[in-house]
């Protein structure tokens, strides 16, 4: 009311930060792994090759190439687009030469590899001043986001797909912390980006009819980019992982119904959007953490989206028999030492490979095996603060679902995971919908996969269900 009486300029009203909520979560589990990245950036050469993989994106009908092997590209120039929705463009993170277009069975596009120039040249996009951005129309902003490829930072719920440009989301969510094991420290990697973050938020506000929510953890250090930003609703969360999963946050703040859409974006994406409008370039540079028990010197590295992990791991591994993961150990993807980072990943985790037998390993007591359970001989509950070294062994064989109630203890949302998974396996569309498949994607139920006694591939099952719902 009083804003109207005082007749404040419109942009001032918009930039006021509304008081957010404080959500206390109890359920969940923090996995404390050895090999956290030290807060320093390693001096190293830039990786030479970069790759964009269509498999990192959901909801893409079919990629159609716009360049050929041998073509020169700039950072921000298009590589391919979606055949059905051709304004969704996938652009190059760096300037250089397209050296390989890798295809699999039935010519399915696997990745587009680029050999980077020594100095990056940027495709130029329109620059705006801060005051111009305030008056910038939504359509113009959308055009620039789509053309630059920065649009891909926007992920739409339900289903976790690349945002539909025709959709008007009821709110936009930014998770301001990562609660996964070995996650990068946001206040470190986003240092000095306050201004770009603010501009990114200003752009995002044009797309939603509701709020832009920024969620931080009550006991973690909050980046100044988050504490200073205006025009958002700042909410606090407490409790263990998965409190940092944006799906959990949406569930508690603005739940998704059947006909709703909510967009999510990482702080990295917000900053990238800010740079796009202020500097007029698609800046894909990012700081990634290289961490895990098998890394000699876990720390941060500067690279670009889709960078090769080779340079980070050279002479930096304690042993050869390791599993390299793009992303975190709960939701990530196994890659080879020659491979590239996933589009959304800011972490390379390296853990021991677990392909070994263990004599009577199912009964011997141990304090070094991490378990959420306190069943016979699993003593890790005595000291969850300890840093654990975990390998990739499944530690048991797949079995039928036995309801031990453990899924519910790591799922801090009002969803019955076992019943949802069973509905998916039974392909019961009505039940999937009623039990909340619109509210979750893989990462939200990743802990269920970790703790499962019956060793199901929970995330794969969930994605199958989502695919069924999208096709229906």
């Amino acid at each position, binding site marked *: 009311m009083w804003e109207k009486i005082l007749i404040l300029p419109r942009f001032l009203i918009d930039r006021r930060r509304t008081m957010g909520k404080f959500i206390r979560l109890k359920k969940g589990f923090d996995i404390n792994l050895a090999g956290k990245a030290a807060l320093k950036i390693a001096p190293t050469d830039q990786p030479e090759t970069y790759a964009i993989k269509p498999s990192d994106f959901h909801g893409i009908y079919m990629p159609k190439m716009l360049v050929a092997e041998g073509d020169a590209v700039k950072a921000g120039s298009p590589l391919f687009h979606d055949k059905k929705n051709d304004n969704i463009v996938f652009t190059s993170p760096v300037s250089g030469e397209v050296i390989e277009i890798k295809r699999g069975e039935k010519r399915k596009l696997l990745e587009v590899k680029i050999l980077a120039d020594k100095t990056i040249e940027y495709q130029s996009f329109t620059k705006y001043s801060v005051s111009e951005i305030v008056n910038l129309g939504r359509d113009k902003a959308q055009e620039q986001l789509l053309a630059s490829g920065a649009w891909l930072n926007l992920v739409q719920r339900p289903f976790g797909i690349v945002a539909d440009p025709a959709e008007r989301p009821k709110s936009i969510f930014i998770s301001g912390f990562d609660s996964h094991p070995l996650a990068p420290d946001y206040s470190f990697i986003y240092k000095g980006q306050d201004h770009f973050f603010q501009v990114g938020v200003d752009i995002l506000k044009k797309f939603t009819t509701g709020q832009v929510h920024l969620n931080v953890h009550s006991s973690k250090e909050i980046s100044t980019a988050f504490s200073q930003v205006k025009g958002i609703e700042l909410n606090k969360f407490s409790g263990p992982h998965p409190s940092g999963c944006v799906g959990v946050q949406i569930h508690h703040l603005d*739940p*998704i119904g*059947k006909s*709703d859409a909510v967009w999510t974006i990482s702080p990295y994406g917000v900053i990238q959007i800010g740079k796009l409008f202020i500097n007029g370039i698609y800046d894909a540079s990012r700081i990634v953490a290289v961490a895990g028990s098998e890394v000699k010197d876990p720390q941060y590295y500067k690279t670009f989206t889709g960078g090769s992990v080779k340079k980070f791991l050279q002479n930096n591994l304690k042993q050869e028999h390791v*599993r390299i*993961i793009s992303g975190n*150990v709960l939701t*990530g*993807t*196994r890659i080879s030492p020659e491979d590239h980072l996933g589009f959304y990943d800011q972490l390379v985790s390296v*853990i021991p*490979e677990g392909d070994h*037998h*263990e*004599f*009577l*390993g*199912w*009964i011997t007591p*141990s304090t070094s*095996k*991490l*378990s*959420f*359970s306190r*069943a*016979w001989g*699993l003593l890790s509950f005595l000291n969850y603060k300890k840093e654990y070294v*975990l*390998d*990739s*062994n*499944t*530690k*048991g*064989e797949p*079995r*039928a679902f*036995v*309801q*031990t*109630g453990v899924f519910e203890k790591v799922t801090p949302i*009002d969803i*019955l995971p*076992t*019943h949802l998974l069973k509905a998916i396996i039974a392909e019961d569309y009505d039940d999937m919908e*009623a*039990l*909340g498949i619109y509210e979750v994607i*893989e990462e939200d139920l*990743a802990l269920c996969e*970790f*703790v*499962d*006694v*019956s060793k199901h*591939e*929970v*995330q*794969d099952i969930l994605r199958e269900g989502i695919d069924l719902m999208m096709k229906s």
Partner: protein
Amino acid sequence: MKFLRNTLDKVKHDFEKGGKWERYYYVFEALDTFAFVPKTTTGVKGAQIRDAVDMKRLMMTVILAMIPCLLFGIYNVGHQHFLAIGQAAGFGEKIWVGIVQVIPIIIVSYATGLTVEFIFATFRRHPVNEGFLVTGMLIPLVMPPDIPLWQVAIATIFAVVIGKEAFGGTGMNVVNIALTARAFLYFAYPVNIAGEVWTFIPEGAKTVEGYSGATPLAIAAETLTSGQNAVEAFSAFGTGWADNMYTFWNMFMGFMPGSIGETSTLMCLIGAFILIATGVGSWKIIVSVFAGAYGMGLFLNLVGSNPFTLMPAHYHLVVGGLAFGAVFMATDPVTAAQTETGKWFYGFLIGIFTVLVRVFNPAYPEGIMLAILLMNVFAPLIDYFVVSANKKRRLKRATI
């Protein structure tokens, strides 16, 4: 251990697809994974690390929780035996009699059950499930000490085949397997599992003067006709040869006739402590069974008119198999209610029905078995209501 591993690896290919013993793959797999945790690793995408818990360890924890009941049961079998024949005996002698009676039952239960499991695993081509490790121990603990071994074998086969494998194996069964075995014996061979069969008395042995093998539940049921006060009837029992056998505290400790493992409420509570502390058994179910039985007992005390209904409510918790059923049978994660809210209803109703069956059906004094079997059947219905409530709540929340 290297030698064992090498041997297993050497013969493994014979059991794999195309090998000469291909059809016995799951038998081999069961033995292999029993000796060694397999070297399988997590998939390309998704959780790259897994919790150290697995089904074997979970089942092992339940077996450990049953050990106090088993050890006490072995002692008690001997103890009751010498009481009945009127001889004084030392601790060692009682244990020995118990071992001779109980161990063969355990061996028969495991041997027949595992044989059936392996046969089914071979023909139906599914892995051998660890569930029977628990069932194989539960069955002996709910048997009378002098049950004929062939009956144990038949009951076990019936329970595993009809109770479990017919439904698709562990995780798919509707009713508790060990209770299926006991119910089968009860209806097929009532002579050996009902009446005064709960004390081991060898054929031809002379019992002490005034001996009666009546259990507290039988005595309580008798008060319906005699009109005697139940607690008085308890204290009058055993005069001369087993004084004070049926006092509340003695029954709580478990020095009385009954199934091998079920007499001692104290040992069941130790088991309950292990299950709850390890998080393997649902404390909600255990607590609510006791609460349901006690609540129903109190209610009958208030409205009841005959001596059995007037038996103090806390006696219901220590007589018969209520404690054992509440701790080890009702908590079976496969057959219990699967929703957290549902568990409260499920347990509470088991408690209520147990007391109802006991008090109003004197022909069958022990109610816990039937109450659990009944609620096993109704558990999916309870879950249905809880899940429907969740769906409604979700729908309402999303449309506001």
